[in-house]
């Protein structure tokens, strides 16, 4: 009987399409034979659409558990539920319903309780998504392996109110008060009357779009960026619709806000879900909430702000992010271990009570926008950004390598003094992966900020009795030399004379002392020269020669001794070529390694 009803509805729709409704403004439904009406038809639809009854988000998180069940959590009330059903695609949460498909059967559950609302057999067809306005659910389905689309409008009792079959490639449709909004051909959104099947208006966009959705009672279209269906929609073809885009920045995994709608989302999360962008656009003027955007990359999540998407925070979780959504004031993220974390947008602090499905999950969908518990943590409880980055950089997880590179670049370019401290700590932390130690040293050598942290790091000594190690003294030496930080001369001399200092570092220190050493370092420099002038090690010989030049430059009786030893037989052949007369200009840093 239901099939018969569906068939009749289809006939009705086709009949309506054929008749055209008699209004010349209106294009033929999903027809390519359309002349841009400069937004007149869609403007009229916008003026007539009543959003006052459009549903708000349900503030729920729905997941596919590791055991394959559908599970839900109410983010406000905390109630949990599970529902067993085969799954061919990832369920969606729209208009207070969870809409899913499995074994050829569509099903709708109450998002708050998991109670079954309706089911409908549709056969094994691709499920692209759904929209719902609180009364009617519009499901977007494929037609086997072809490009065509079936739009199925189902009422709360499970009956089909309208079925639209088209050979057009449609994206995920939304429905608002008797009007279906169908994105198609990656550039149009057609408004189709639910009662008549007529196309009431059409809008063309300058940017690829394949999704239409309701969020917090507002209608949006998008894929790359987000358009809002408001009074500016009529000007879309002239590029003046309300539109936001996430500011571009280099991120690992090339994360996106939305996948093309025709990519069926599998029940289990994939790479796209693990490297994902999130943002919550709203307000007047239309903009991202707090100018913030978020990104996930496996176990890390990050918050950005401003038009240049400046990194504000980074968080490392025990397991990978598998889904989430930006909300007012923050972002809700689900992790593979079943935990749901609400991050405060500015700081990344995990707020609210711990939420968990109580078992690992394969994927999740968040339906929330505002009204969920986000508390601002006290400033003292927040670790500085550099420390947050450091926590990620010392993690040995190979999956994090790409984000670690990004974060290393971030910290290297940071204008915050504490970044210097973090870089130093990374170089001495045994957990830091070797390639990152090299990166940190490189970044440190070029730092122009945080000299106090560099000087402080020079205080650390190699001491087998107290189990302490010196920092990256060679790198620090070069950085402090470029800053002409004369206070570094004394501690650098100590490291120069320390037999535990590597010859490479000794060489860098010698280079630095060429411009930093003063009268009080002369005796120590001479001691270094005398102890090592017989060396046959080429790197050490270079350092010895550099020290000799420095001694000659500094003058005094030490310079005389150094000169006397220039041709001494115990000054090695490796050292002698470097004992050149005092240069007229200060010696420049030479490549040492």
């Amino acid at each position, binding site marked *: 009987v239901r099939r018969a009803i569906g068939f009749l509805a289809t006939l009705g729709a086709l009949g309506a399409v054929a008749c055209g409704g008699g209004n010349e403004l209106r294009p033929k439904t999903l027809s390519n034979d359309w002349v841009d009406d400069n937004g007149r038809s869609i403007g009229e639809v916008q003026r007539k659409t009543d959003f006052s009854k459009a549903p708000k988000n349900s503030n729920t998180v729905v997941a596919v558990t590791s055991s394959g069940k559908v599970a839900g959590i109410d983010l406000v009330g905390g109630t949990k539920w599970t529902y067993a059903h085969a799954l061919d695609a990832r369920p969606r949460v729209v208009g207070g319903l969870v809409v899913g498909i499995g074994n050829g059967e569509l099903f709708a559950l109450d998002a708050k309780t998991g109670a079954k609302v309706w089911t409908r057999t549709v056969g094994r067809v691709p499920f692209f998504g759904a929209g719902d306005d609180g009364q009617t659910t519009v499901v977007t389905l494929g037609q086997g392996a072809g490009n065509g689309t079936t739009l199925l409008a189902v009422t709360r009792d499970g009956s089909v109110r309208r079925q639209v079959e088209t050979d057009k490639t449609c994206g995920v449709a939304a429905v608002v008060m008797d009007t279906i909004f169908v994105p198609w051909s990656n550039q149009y959104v057609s408004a189709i009357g639910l009662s008549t099947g007529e196309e009431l208006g059409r809008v063309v966009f300058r940017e690829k779009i394949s999704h239409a959705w309701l969020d917090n009672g507002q209608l949006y279209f998008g894929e790359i960026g987000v358009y809002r269906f408001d009074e500016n929609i009529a000007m879309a073809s002239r590029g003046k619709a309300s539109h936001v885009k996430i500011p571009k920045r280099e991120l690992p995994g090339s994360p996106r806000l939305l996948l093309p709608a025709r990519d069926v989302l599998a029940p289990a999360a994939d790479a796209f879900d693990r490297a994902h962008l999130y943002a919550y656009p709203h307000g007047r003027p239309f903009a991202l909430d707090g100018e913030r955007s978020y990104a996930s990359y496996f176990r890390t999540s990050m918050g950005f702000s401003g038009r240049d998407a400046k990194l504000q925070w980074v968080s490392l979780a025990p397991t990978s992010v598998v889904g989430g959504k930006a909300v007012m004031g923050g972002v809700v993220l689900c992790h593979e271990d079943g935990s749901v974390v609400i991050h405060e947008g500015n700081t990344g602090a995990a707020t609210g009570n711990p939420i968990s499905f109580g078992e690992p999950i394969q994927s999740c969908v968040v339906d929330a926008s505002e009204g969920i518990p986000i508390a601002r943590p006290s400033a003292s409880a927040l670790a500085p950004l550099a420390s947050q980055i450091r926590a990620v950089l010392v993690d040995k997880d190979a999956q994090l390598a790409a984000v670690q590179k990004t974060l290393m670049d971030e910290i290297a370019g940071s204008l915050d003094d504490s970044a210097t401290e973090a870089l130093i700590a990374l170089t001495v932390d045994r957990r830091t992966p070797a390639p990152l130690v090299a990166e940190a040293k490189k970044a440190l050598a070029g730092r122009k900020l945080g000299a106090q942290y560099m000087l402080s790091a020079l205080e650390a000594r190699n001491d087998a009795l107290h189990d302490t190690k010196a920092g990256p003294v060679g790198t620090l030496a070069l950085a402090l030399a470029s800053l002409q930080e004369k206070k570094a001369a004394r501690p650098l001399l100590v490291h120069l004379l320390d*037999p535990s200092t590597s010859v490479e570092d000794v060489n860098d220190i010698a280079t630095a002392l060429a411009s930093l050493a003063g009268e009080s370092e002369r005796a120590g420099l001479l001691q270094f020269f005398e102890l*090592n002038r017989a060396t046959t090690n080429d790197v050490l010989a270079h350092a010895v020669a550099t020290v000799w030049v420095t001694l000659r430059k500094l003058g005094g009786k030490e310079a005389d001794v150094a000169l006397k030893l220039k041709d001494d037989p115990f000054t090695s052949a490796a050292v002698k070529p470097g004992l050149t007369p005092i240069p007229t200009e200060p010696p420049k840093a030479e490549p040492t390694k």
Partner: protein
Amino acid sequence: MGDVSAALWKSARAAWATTTLLLLAWSAQAQPKTAVGRTEVADVTRKLASGDEAQVATGIEECRGQKTIATQAKGKIVELLELGLPAQAAGSALDVLGELEDPGTSAVVAKYTIHRDTVVRRSATKALGRVRGTQATSALRHALTDADAEVRGFAAAGLGALGAHDALSELVLAVDKRVYEAATAIAQLCMKDECAALTSRFGRLPFDVTSAAMSVALFRKSSDLPDATKVKMIEAIRELTSPEAKRFLGELRDKSKGLSPAVVTALQAGAKEGSP
């Protein structure tokens, strides 16, 4: 019992005879090989001044065990070390200065405790414990932090020999880092209750380390280390309750000549306890 005593006595006499022979042999070896003439001193001096690495090395080697020649050549050796020598020659020169035990050479020997060559640092640290002098204590304390275990061992032994009481806390730390020479050093330096830092570690140290330290502590003068402290140390050994501890206390009891009655009594009690 009579048979046992006779057997012990026989064994002790045999050991004494062996020890005497060994001492005589060592003594003969330690004596200058021949009488030293001016020619030999001049020859060594010439080699040391030659500027040729091989000749200098030979000259330094010829000073080893030759106190008269070494004393004559000391000035030149110090001069060579001050200006810097190749590692091998430097090590030999430091050994020679160590043999001379002249505090006047302390500065130049101390300078080499931070040489990049580990063998040279070992020679310098070892020599410094014998040379002593003004810079010895600070240089040896620093050497106690060296990356090389042998250098740390020589440093600890040197600090004990120097009576560097100020280094006691570092020596305790060194013991915990398995620098076992530090245990003997502590036994040489500790005062009264400070010795508890050593006795509290007896159970964790190899017994030969414990026994060596204990032997040193017990034979310190009573004015230097009170008998009461020594008795406490004996008690600590007794608490180990191992057969080797009892045997060791027995050996100490047998060599207790010169020790106070209280210490001897404690040793006797320790040795008796658990003996067959």
